[in-house]
C-alpha cells in the first residue's frame, strides 16, 4: 500500500455548527453556489431589449436548451415550466466538477493525527450530495406524473390488473425500476467524479509533473458529460412520466423528435 496515498471514501467533517456537521464538501458546495448566484445577479441585472454581448450569449444558450426541451416534452409551456430545474442541475453539477481542478481544492487543509484533512473537497465526491440531487429528481418526476396525469391514471401504470398476471408483474418491475433510478443517478455521478479524483491522486503520486494534465483534461470532459447526462435523463424521465399509459399493452411509449412522429400499436 502506498505510504501517504490517503483516499477517503466519505467526506471529512471539519466542525459542527449548532449540531449540524459541516463537512468540507459542504463548504465547497457553498462556494459553488455563491459563484453561481453572483454570475446570475451580474448577468441578469438589467436586461436590455437590444442585448449586449454577454446577454446575447446567454440568450443563445437558453434558446438552445429550451428548443431541445420543447422537442422532447411537446409543448413550450411544459418546457418553460421545467427549464429552471433542468438547467440548474446542469449548471450546479458542471460548475462543481470544474472547481475540482482549482489549485487549492483538496490540497489546502489542516493536519489531524498526521493526515491532511483538506478544507475544500470536490463537491460530487460526496455520496450525500449526489443522493440529494437524485432524490430531488425522483420526487419531481413522480410528483409531475401524479399532478399531470392524475393519481389513478399514473398509478395504473404500476398496479395493472387489466392485463392479468403478466401485466401485474410488469407493473411491479416498472415500479422497482423507477425506484432504482435513485441509486443509478447518485452512483453514476458519484462514481465518475470519485474515480476521476482517485485516478489523478494515484498518477500524481507516481509522476507529478506533466502527465496528470491530459488526465485532468479528460476528467473535465467527463464532468461536463455527467452533468449533461444528469439533466438529460431527468428530462427524459419526466417525459416518460407524463406519457399516457398505452391502452393495449399497458406500457408507455416515448415520442421524441421535431417531426412529431407518433408510434402506435394495435
Amino acid at each position, binding site marked *: *500500500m502506498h505510504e501517504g496515498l490517503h*483516499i*477517503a*471514501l466519505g467526506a471529512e467533517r471539519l466542525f459542527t455548527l449548532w449540531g449540524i456537521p459541516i463537512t468540507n464538501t459542504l463548504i465547497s458546495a457553498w462556494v459553488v453556489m455563491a459563484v453561481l448566484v453572483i454570475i446570475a445577479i451580474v448577468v441578469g441585472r438589467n436586461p436590455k431589449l437590444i442585448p449586449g454581448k454577454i446577454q446575447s450569449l446567454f440568450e443563445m444558450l437558453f434558446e438552445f436548451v429550451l428548443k431541445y426541451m420543447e422537442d422532447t416534452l411537446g409543448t413550450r409551456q411544459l418546457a418553460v415550466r421545467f427549464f429552471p430545474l433542468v438547467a440548474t442541475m446542469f449548471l450546479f453539477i458542471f460548475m462543481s466538477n470544474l472547481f475540482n481542478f482549482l489549485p487549492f481544492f483538496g490540497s489546502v487543509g489542516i493536519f489531524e493525527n498526521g493526515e491532511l484533512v483538506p478544507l475544500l473537497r470536490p463537491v460530487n465526491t460526496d455520496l450525500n450530495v449526489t443522493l440529494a440531487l437524485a432524490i430531488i429528481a425522483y420526487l419531481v418526476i413522480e410528483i409531475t406524473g401524479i399532478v399531470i396525469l392524475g393519481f389513478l391514471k399514473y398509478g395504473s401504470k404500476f398496479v395493472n390488473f387489466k392485463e392479468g398476471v403478466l401485466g401485474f408483474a410488469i407493473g411491479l418491475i416498472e415500479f422497482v425500476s423507477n425506484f432504482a433510478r435513485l441509486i*443509478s443517478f447518485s*452512483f*453514476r455521478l*458519484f*462514481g*465518475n467524479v*470519485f*474515480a476521476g479524483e*482517485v485516478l489523478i491522486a494515484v498518477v500524481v503520486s507516481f509522476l507529478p509533473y506533466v502527465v496528470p494534465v491530459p488526465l485532468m483534461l479528460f476528467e473535465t470532459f467527463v464532468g461536463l*458529460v455527467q452533468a*449533461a*447526462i444528469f439533466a*438529460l*435523463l431527468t428530462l*427524459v424521465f419526466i417525459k416518460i412520466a407524463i406519457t399516457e399509459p398505452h391502452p393495449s399493452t399497458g406500457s408507455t411509449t416515448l415520442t*421524441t*423528435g421535431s417531426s412529431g412522429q407518433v408510434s402506435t400499436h394495435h
Partner: protein
Amino acid sequence: MDIDSAKTIGMALAVGLGVIGPGIGIGILVSKALEAIGRNPEAAGTIQTTMFIGIAFTEALAIFALVVGFIIKFT
C-alpha cells in the same frame, strides 16, 4: 492469507469482472449508432443524443462495480 491481501484481490476481481459486460454493451451500442448514422446522416443529431443516453445507462453498471471495489478496499 491476511485481510489486506484478500481485500486487494477482492477489489481487483470485482472491478475486472464487473466492467466486461458494460464494455461489450457500449461497443455494441456505438456500433449500431454508427450504422444508423451511416444509413441516415440527416438524423445524426437525434441518434447521437440517444446514443449518449444509452451509454450513460450501461456505464452506470460499470460504475457500480467500481464503487463496490472501492468499498471493499477502503472500508
